[in-house]
């Protein structure tokens, strides 16, 4: 079950040659062939969420929540607003009520620049995973794009 996998090293406790149990830093067969492989190719979740977003079935807040697998209650407690408000903001009709300041808070939770609340990549849904590069500036509302 232990394999050489440079990309994802972990500590596993195994039986050593002298019969004692101890730690070894190694790669895992399960992680290499199943878990990492799976997360890297998890496109169908993003594709499904993107389809809903482009069809105006969910708002950008709902889109990123689907991708990150977050519940409304968790997002609400992290942003500091009520759960019912987050549920409203997940719907396109109510998303327009979100202020720029609140959009910034949402963006921080989703780990994206606030600009990405209003734009997506049609290939992967997430902007910074393809050739477009964004860089932060001192202004929290602005990113430069290359």
């Amino acid at each position: 079950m232990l394999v050489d996998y440079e990309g994802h090293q972990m500590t596993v406790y195994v039986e050593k040659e002298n019969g004692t149990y101890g730690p070894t830093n190694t790669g895992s067969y399960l992680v290499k062939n199943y878990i990492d492989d799976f997360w890297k190719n998890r496109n169908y979740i993003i594709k499904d969420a993107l389809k809903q977003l482009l069809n105006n079935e969910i708002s950008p807040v709902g889109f990123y929540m689907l991708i990150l697998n977050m519940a409304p209650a968790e997002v609400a407690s992290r942003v500091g607003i009520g759960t019912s408000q987050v549920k409203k903001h997940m719907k396109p009709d109510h998303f327009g009520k979100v202020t720029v300041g609140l959009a910034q808070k949402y963006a921080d939770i989703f780990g994206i620049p606030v600009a990405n609340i209003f734009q997506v990549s049609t290939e992967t849904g997430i902007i910074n995973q393809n050739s477009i590069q964004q860089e932060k500036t001192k202004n929290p509302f602005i990113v430069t794009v290359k």
Partner: protein
Amino acid sequence: MNTANFEHKMAAHCESGTVTGLLNYNGMQISEPMVFGISAGIFFAYLQGPKLPFPLFVHRSKPGSIRKKIRKRLDVAFKEIKNRDIDKATHVLDTLIARKIPTAVQVDMFYMDYIPQYMKVHFNGHYVTVVGKENSTYTVSDCYYPQLANISIESMRKARSARGDLAPRGLLFYATVVPKEVDLATPIRKGIKEAARNMVKLPVPFIGVKGIRMFARKIVDWPSLARNEGHLSDQVMDISANLEDKGTGGAGFRFMYASFLQEAAKILNDTALADMARQMMENGDRWRELSLHAARMGKYHEFSKEKFKELQDLIFARADTEEKLFSQLLKMIS
């Protein structure tokens, strides 16, 4: 730059690894499994509710409890400072780093810059040790990362001031009094007793062995809870990731606990305990088989009723074995 001459080591579990790192740095020679075992880190709970997007299970004690139990059972003193004001919390951290004191901080794992994008999840109960600071970056020792890593000041501020469940609230701690020699016999007994009680004696339906059985009973309903097949495969794969990958040392900490029992058997000079260690290692192997079964189901989208039934049987078998093992441990210790 590592200003504190802190030796970075990978570890199976972030909290026990961080506490072990601080104790070793201050002169106490103790292994990670010993810290994990003494603080009764092994656990099981099946959780579901409105705050969770999907049911999940945990196999570790509550974040923070390892530090608290070690403080109590090994007579170690940690200076702990919590500060909701992130400016003040950052100032305290910077002062300690300037004094070359390796300082552990509680963080939201999502903001750790060095973690690959696809692995980023919000989890407030992660611990790292800050060992240096240079210009706009901190040098941190994260037990899940092979080398010392860098993280920007901005990310560290976000990670320490994250809100939500188990919010860090700027918590940092460092060791102030660490005895060089300590008698481990009593702490070991206390640790085993507490862990075994948690696993077999608590009258709560979702904790310990009862929790494993609840997990087995509920798993067959998972297809009806998922939005679609993609979502279901995510969640089934998460069983495997939880057991194998998320800092467990393989098999949901069972291998590490076996290592602890073996060390404990030597210290207590108890051959029966050494035999329990061997049985725990075998139990770990079976958890890993379960993990592989779930991974196959998730990757190849094998979601027939039969497959879920097979998975259920594997989980029930773990509950039976662990009930026997922890009951025996409880008898041996008390």
